[in-house]
């Protein structure tokens, strides 16, 4: 709420990126009588919109925040407070992103509903509860992946190259460029079973297959939450014993 200009800029960026892709796909689908591999343009539009609205939460920024805390030594200030450092950083990130997310999602959803309509899968009773569970799972998996990247700063200081690799993997496997329904088989499997794909499973919820695979995808998210959580616990407990900041 402190930065309306920033909120406007963020929203405009998302609208521009998503809008250009949707215009391209609208043209491609029109060349194929509105359907590709049984997928309609409305499904693709909503799937891509879910990806872009999800990234307005900016959960990935936790990597940079952790890296900055470590490299600048600011972590010592936070470690002297009665907080669990990683929870603090995670909630901070959620808090920072929730307002742009709500604004972008409401505006985008209304626009899409009015322009391309609502796909059939989104009208069944199962959709909203499973979307909510997948959405929460996606936030946790995303925060966990990028927390691991950030924690690597304890050992290799500049994690930006790793951040970019992970971020691009999430973008591609999440279906930001090519909708997941149009993935070739091997890539769809990677998107399904890798943590990068699991971090944006919200993009799968609009397709017809969702009614049969939702429990599988939520289970995969749960699996990654447990595994990545264990890795974070191990890394952080080792890292805090090796904290070394200027002048001590």
């Amino acid at each position: 709420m402190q930065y309306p200009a920033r909120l406007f800029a963020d929203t405009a960026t998302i609208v521009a990126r998503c809008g250009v892709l949707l215009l391209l796909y609208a043209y491609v689908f029109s060349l194929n009588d509105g359907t590709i591999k049984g997928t309609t343009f409305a499904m693709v539009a909503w799937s891509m919109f879910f990806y872009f609205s999800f990234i307005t939460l900016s959960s990935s920024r936790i990597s940079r925040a952790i890296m900055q805390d470590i490299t600048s030594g600011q972590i010592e200030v936070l470690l002297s407070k009665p907080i669990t450092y990683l929870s603090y950083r995670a909630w901070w990130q959620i808090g920072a992103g929730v307002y742009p997310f709500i604004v972008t999602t409401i505006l985008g959803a209304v626009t899409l509903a009015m322009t391309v309509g609502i796909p059939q899968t989104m009208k069944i009773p199962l959709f909203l509860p499973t979307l909510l569970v997948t959405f929460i799972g996606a936030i946790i998996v995303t925060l966990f992946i990028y927390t691991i990247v950030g924690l690597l700063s304890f050992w290799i200081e500049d994690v930006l190259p790793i951040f970019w690799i992970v971020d691009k993997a999430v973008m591609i496997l999440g279906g930001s460029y090519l909708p997941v329904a149009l993935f070739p088989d091997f890539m769809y499997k990677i998107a399904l079973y890798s943590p990068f794909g699991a971090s944006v499973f919200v993009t799968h919820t609009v397709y017809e297959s969702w009614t049969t695979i939702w429990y599988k995808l939520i289970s995969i998210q749960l699996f990654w939450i447990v595994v990545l959580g264990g890795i974070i616990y191990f890394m952080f407990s080792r890292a805090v014993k090796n904290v070394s900041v200027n002048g001590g």
Partner: protein
Amino acid sequence: MVFKLYFSRVPTGLIKWVLNQLGYNINEILILFAFGFSWYSLKMSDNSIIVTNLSKTFTFPVRSATAGWVKNLFSPEKREITAVKEVSFSVKAGERIAFIGPNGAGKSTTIKMLTGILFPTAGTISVLGLDPSKDRKKLAYRIGTVFGQRSQLLPNLPLTDSLEFFGVMYGMSDADIKSRISELVELFDLSAFIDQPVRKLSLGQRMRAEVAAALIHRPEIIFLDEPTIGLDVVAKKALRDLLIKINKEEKVTIFLTSHDVGDIESLCDRTIVINHGTIINDLPTNELSRAFAYEKYIDLIPKTSFKNFPSLLEGATYFLKSSEKITVIVDINKLSVQDSLKRLLELFVVEDIDVYNTELETTIRHIYERDSAR
């Protein structure tokens, strides 16, 4: 309840019988135990901080010029630096301690171990009866920290939001936060800039705000790591006065590291000097100069003006040579003040003489230099 159940299972009859066989009376043992426990509790309540044989070693990889890149990447050579070596001291509740030393002496490392930020390699720490490395969060509720080179305030939000944020972080009620902020605003004179974003505050205003934020939860000890760094003389004095005030009014123990002699002289009643990771002195601040005053300064003011500067006795050296004033440093281990004055009065015709000890800053410099020369 659990305690009672546990002890109800202890075969007290058996214990009594064993003690009787060994010639001990259970009542005497209980009295001795109670006495020992009371003495220990008293000792613990008196001391806010107890540090015993504390050491910290940092290990870091070093690139070897002779080894290949694979070895340097996966199995690099390790180098160790001992930042703190077997340090022991204790601090009583309500004391104002200066923990000083040259750069790299180990003072910041020690303060960070005391606050639970760094883990000791060896030794034990008890701060308010807690082990900072095991009870960091519990301890954080009872201590405050100010790191002069870092800010804990939220830069883009008004100061009042930062104070409220910390109040919530420390689990204070809304009413308590409001009343405490009012107290701190009055105490630290924050009203003029309480609604301004922190990034727009001057350094002096920001440091006052930092200390206020560290005191929001009424801590029993406040650790300050170079709190006056970069401040002008007026801001420094204001901050020192405030720290003395909170020490006296709120009985907050002050543990401070600083390179500023003014902080030490005007604020702290005891000074611990650390160098190369070990404590080299621990004494009341007002005794610091006296204990190391092996140099006396003698100022000579001429009747007309000084023209010649003849050689002095061994142990005396010129510090300042001018026609209006001469300052001579006398090493009293080699030459007495009386002998040096006698000789100087033979050499010069003077109107006034002033004999004084070295300043605290010079004393501290001597301590560092002497320790480094060892």
